C-alpha cells in the first residue's frame, strides 16, 4: 500500500481534504505534525509520498511559506535529503508550493537545494482571491526525454483542467531569465493558467500576474511537484462551481493528479 504523510503545523488548513484525495486515489494517509518529525516520534522516510497541504502556516507572517520552509531546511534537512535521494515523491499545494519554493526544493535546477531560484509573491491585485481557473500543461521542452512528460504527477493528463485557486501570494517569479529559460527547456513548467480554450490571457485568467502564467512546476526529476491551484478541492464533480449546468456525477479534474502520483509510487517505490 502506498503510504502518504500529510504534514501539518500551526495554520495548516487543507490537510484533511488533501488526505481524502489521496484516500480516493487508493493510498493510505496519515496526518503528522511537524513537531512529531522534529522530535523524532515519526520519520518521513517511513512513507512513499510527502504532501505539504494548503493553509497559512505561521499566519503567512513575514512571507508565505517562509517559516515552515526554514523549519524543514534547518531542522529536517537530513531526513529530507534521504527522502529525495530515495526517489520518493513530494507534492506541495498552494501554501505547500510556497514552502517548497522558499526552501529551495523547487525548481532546484542546481541540484543541491541551496539556491532560492524563484519565488511566489503578493498577487498583483494585492489581495487574497478565491476563483476557479483553467490550466493547461506546459510544453515538454527540448532535448532528451522531451517526448514524455517530465512530471510523474501529471502523466496521462490532457486538455484543459479546471481547479480553484485561493491565495494572496501566488505570483510566480523566476529569479533570473536563465532560470526561466531552463524551466522551459527542461519541460519543468507543469501547468500554465489559460482560458477555457487553452489560450493564455491576462487577469483574471492568470489570477495573480505570474510570469509566463506559471501555475505549477516540478524539479528536474519530475518527482517534486508544486502548484498554486487546489486539486484536492476538485475530486468530485459536485465541487465544480457550475455542476448544476451539466453533470453532477463522477470525479473532478483534480483527482487525476493524486491518482497519477499514487500509481507511480505503487509501480516504482
Amino acid at each position, binding site marked *: 500500500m502506498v503510504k502518504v504523510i500529510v504534514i501539518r503545523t500551526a495554520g495548516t488548513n487543507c490537510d484533511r481534504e488533501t488526505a481524502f484525495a489521496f484516500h480516493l486515489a487508493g493510498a493510505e494517509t496519515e496526518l503528522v505534525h511537524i513537531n512529531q518529525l522534529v522530535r523524532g516520534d515519526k520519520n518521513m522516510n517511513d512513507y512513499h509520498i510527502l504532501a505539504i497541504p494548503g493553509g497559512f502556516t505561521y499566519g503567512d507572517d513575514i512571507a508565505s511559506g517562509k517559516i515552515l520552509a526554514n523549519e524543514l531546511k534547518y531542522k529536517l534537512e537530513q531526513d529530507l535529503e534521504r527522502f529525495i535521494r530515495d526517489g520518493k515523491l513530494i507534492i506541495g499545494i498552494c501554501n505547500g508550493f510556497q514552502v517548497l519554493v522558499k526552501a529551495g526544493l523547487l525548481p532546484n535546477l542546481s541540484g543541491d537545494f541551496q539556491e532560492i531560484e524563484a519565488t511566489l509573491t503578493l498577487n498583483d491585485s494585492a489581495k487574497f482571491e478565491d476563483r476557479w481557473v483553467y490550466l493547461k500543461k506546459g510544453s515538454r521542452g527540448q532535448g532528451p526525454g522531451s517526448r514524455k512528460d517530465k512530471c510523474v504527477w501529471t502523466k496521462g493528463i490532457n486538455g484543459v483542467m479546471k481547479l480553484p485557486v485561493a491565495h494572496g501570494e501566488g505570483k510566480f517569479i523566476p529569479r533570473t531569465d536563465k532560470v526561466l529559460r531552463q524551466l522551459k527547456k527542461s519541460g519543468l513548467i507543469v501547468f500554465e493558467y489559460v482560458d477555457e480554450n487553452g489560450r493564455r490571457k491576462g487577469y483574471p485568467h492568470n489570477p495573480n500576474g505570474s510570469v509566463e502564467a506559471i501555475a505549477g512546476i516540478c524539479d528536474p526529476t519530475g518527482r517534486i511537484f508544486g502548484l498554486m491551484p487546489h486539486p484536492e478541492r476538485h475530486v468530485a464533480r459536485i*465541487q465544480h462551481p457550475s455542476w448544476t449546468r451539466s453533470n453532477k456525477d463522477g470525479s473532478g479534474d483534480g483527482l487525476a493528479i493524486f491518482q497519477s502520483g499514487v500509481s507511480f509510487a505503487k509501480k516504482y517505490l
Partner: protein
Amino acid sequence: MIWRVEVKEKAGFYDAMGQSVKKDIHDLGLGKKVKEVKYVQVYLLEGDLEDRNIKDICENLLIDPVTQDYSYDGNVSDEKCYKAVEVAYNPGVMDPVEDSALKAILDLGVEGIRTVRTAKKYLIKGSLSHGEIRSIAEKILYNKVIQHLVTGKSGIAPEPPPYKFQLNHFNIINASNKALERISKEGQLFMSLDEMRAVKQYFKKLGRNPTDCELETIAQTWSEHCKHKTFRGLIEYDGKIIDNLLKNTVMKATKELAKPWCVSVFKDNSGIIRFDDKYDVCFKVETHNHPSALEPYGGAGTGIGGVIRDPLGTGMGAKPIINTDVFCFGLPDHPYNRLPKGAIHPKRIMKGVVAGVRDYGNRMGIPTSNGAVLFDEDFVGNPLVFCGNVGILPKNTAFKKANKGDLVVVVGGRTGRDGIHGATFSSGELTHESETVSGSCVQIGNPIQEKKVTDTILQARDLGLYTAITDCGAGGLSSAVGEMGEELGAEVHLDKVPLKYKGLRHDEIWISEAQERMVISVDPKKIGKLKSVFENENVEATVIGRFTGDKHLRLFYEGDLVCDMAMKFIHDGVPNVKRKAVWKKPVFKEPRIREKKDYAKDLLNLMSMPNVASKEWIIRQYDHEVQGGSVLKPLQGKHEDGPGDACITRPRLDSKKGIILSCGINIDYGKIDPYWMAASSIDEALRQVTAVGGNIEKAAILDNFCWGNCNKPDRLGGLVRASQACYDMAKVYGVPFISGKDSLNNEYAMGHKTISIPPTLLISCITVMDDTAKAVTMDAKKAGNAIYLIGLTRDEMGGSQYYKMLGYTGNSIPKVDPLYAKSLMKALNKTIEKGIIASCHDCSDGGMAVALAEMAFAGDLGMDIALKAPIPEDQECLRDHVLLFSESNSRFVAEVKDEKKFLAAMRGVPVWKLGKVTPGRTFSVRGGGGREIISTDIDKLKAAWKRPFKDM
C-alpha cells in the same frame, strides 16, 4: 541593542502594496497629486545580536531574495523627493507577526534575539502639502486607536514594570445614590442606580465594602451584553406587562414546536441540531458593532474570531466548519465633510471590516460562504458587523458538566490589557469620545493562535481529557469561570494566569477580553496527559484554580483574597429592569408614480443600487471552499458570477448529506414597521432555503436583533413588535429558533442628537439537506425553457429598493401570510426534488424584475417576458412598476423543464407563466398593455450590477 531593518521591493518589481495605497489615495480625491507610493516593511530587532546575525536573519528570513532588498542601521530608505509616513502599533497592542518572527529567528539558530517589533512605512512621492500627507495618514494608513505615527527615532517601548499588588475597596455601603452613580460612571461599569443599590444591599449584609475585583465581576456579569436585561426584564406595553420578552416570543415558539431534532437550544454557546446518525451541527451568530466602528479591521477580525469560539465552546467542543458574515454600512459615497465628528468614513469601515473577516477567517481555514451587505445612511457612525459560525460535533457530545474538584484550566493565548471593558462598553452608546475612552476595548486577533487551540482542543476532546469547556468572550475569565462554576463555585489564583507582559492589575487579569482563550475543567488525574496534548503543538494550557463545590466565587492574587461572593448573587442578583414600550406607526411621504412607457433605465439604475449590486469584490476575498465541502458557492452561473440564494456545504466528504445556510435581513422595512420587517426577514431566509432545493421542515433559525437605545420607549416598542412577529411566524412556519443574540445600543451620539440605526433583525437559517445532488442554482440554463412566477404579487412598495431609488420610504410594507407561504414553499420543494426545475431564484431586493435579470445574465441567456398573463383570483389589477419592482414576500421565479409536470406538481399554488428563456442576449419585457416596456441586453444589466463595487 536595537537593530532597524527595512525591507522593500527591488527596483523593477511590482510593488502591489504601494499600488494599492496609491489607489486609496486616488479615491480620496488626491490622485492627481500622487506620483508614486512605495511600501517598506520595518523590523526592529532587539537582543545580543551581531552584524553577521542581522545579515543572516535578513537574508534567510526577512527578505524574499528574488524580489526584495534590505538595509539596516543608518542606511534607511528615506530617499529624496519621497515623504515618509511610518506607522507602528501602540504599546500593548498585539502584533501576531512578532510571535512568528521570534520563533523563526530562533529556528535559524540565532539565540541572542529577545524582542521583535514591526512597523509599516510608506514613501509617498508627489506634490502634497504637509496637511495632505497627514490627512492621508489619518484616513488611510493608520488608526490611532491601535497605532501611532512614528516620528523621530524609532524604538521599542520598555516592558512595563511589574505590578505592585494593591487591593482597592469601593465605599458603597454608606454611599448616597449620587455617589453610587458616580462610582458606576467613573469606573466605566455602565451600571444603573438600581443595580448599584442591589450591590450596596448585598455588601451591607456582608458588613463590608466590595473590592475592585468584585465590583468589576458584577458589572461584567450584569451587563446588557451578558445578561440581556431588556429581553429578560419587565416591559409595559399596550396596557400589559410582558415578563421576559424572549421567553414569551422567540423561545416560546421553539418550546411549542418541540422538534425532536433540536438537540440543545438557547442553553449553550450555540444552538445544536441533529445532522445524521453520527453527528450534530451547531450554529451561532454574534455582532461586533462597536469595536468595528472604532477599529474596523481588528473589530471585525475579533468578531469572527470570537464567534468561532462559540461552536468550539459548545457541548464538548465542535469543529468550526463554515463562517457567515452580514454587514450594514453607511453609504460608501458619503461626503467626507458631512461625516459625524469622530466617525470613520463608511468606505474605510467597509474595507477594514472585509479585510478583518478575510484575514481571520481565511487563516483559520474555515470557508466564509454566506452573507449579505447592506447600506443605509443611518449606519454612518454605527455599522453592524454580524459574524456567524457553524460547527460539527459527534453525537452524544452535546452536553457537559464540570465536577467538584476539577481543575480550572485556561488554554491558548496569553492575557494582556487588550479588551478591557468590552462587555460593558458595548452596552452603551457610541460617541466621538469613544475612541479615546474605550480604545482599550479594541484588539487585533491572532488567528493562528486560535487555529492551534482548535486543533488541540479537538484532540483533547476525542481523548476524553476534560469534562466541560467554554470560551473566553465578553467579560473574559470572569464570564467563562463564572458560567462554568455557577452550580459548583470556583476558586482562581489570578497570579497563575499567563500574561503577555508584566504590569497587569489583578482585576484587569480577571476581566481582560484578550482573544483566543478557552477555559476547560479537568479531572486532576488527567491533567498530565492533557497538558502534553497542548504542549505537543505549542499551545499553553495552565491550571489557574479549581471548581470547589461551595457555590462561592473566590479569587486570589499571590495568596490574598480579592473576591469572595456567592455565585447565586452574581448570577441572579441583578434587579429586574422595568421599561415602558410604545409603538406608533410612523407616516412616511408616499410617492406619486406615473406609469412610464419605458422601464429599462429604472431597471438598470436599480441593478446599481448598493444593496442590489454585486458583492463579488468581497466574496472573492474569502476562501469559500477550504475544507472541500462546498456544493453551492456564493457565486453561480455560467461565468461564476451570479448571486446565489444560499450556500450548501457537505461537512463529511464521504457523504451526500449537506447543510444549507441562508440569511434574511431588511433594513428599510424596519423603519416602517418592525413587525413586518421581522416577518419578511424570516420569509426571506426560508425562501432562499427553498430556492436551492431545501425543505423548510428541516430548517432552524437564529435571531440577531440590532436596535437603538431601548431605554427609549419607542425603540423598545419596535423591539416588542419584532419579537411578536418572530413568535407568530416561527409557530406557523414550524421553524424553531435555536439560538440568538441582541445588541441594543446602536446609536451614535453627537452632542444632544443621536443617530439611531434602523431597527434590524438578522435571521440566519441552517437546514439539513439529505441529498445535495438535488440542489438547484439561480442561473438560467437553456433557451426555450418556460419562466414562471410563483406566489402572489401585491402593491407593497413601502421600503422597496425602487422607492429608495426614487428617494422615498413609503408606507405599504410587504406582509407575510405564513400559512400560505409554508404550503407554497413545501410544494416548490417537492417540485424541485422531482427534478422539474432547471433554475430558481427568490424575489427580494428590487423585486421580480431584478430576480429575472440576475437569472438571465448569470445563465448568459436572454429572456422574453410578458407581464400580461392570467391573474390569480384575489389579485387586483396591478400597474407595471408594481409587477416589476414590488417586493411582496414568498415569491420565486423558476425556469421550468417540463411545464405539464410543473403545473401538476404545483396544483393549488398561485403560479403565473411569464415567458421563456431565449438564446440571444436580449432581455425583453412587455407590460400589462402588451407594449414592450423593457428592452435591453444582459451585458448591460450585468455591467450595471457589477459597477458599484468593481474596483474598490
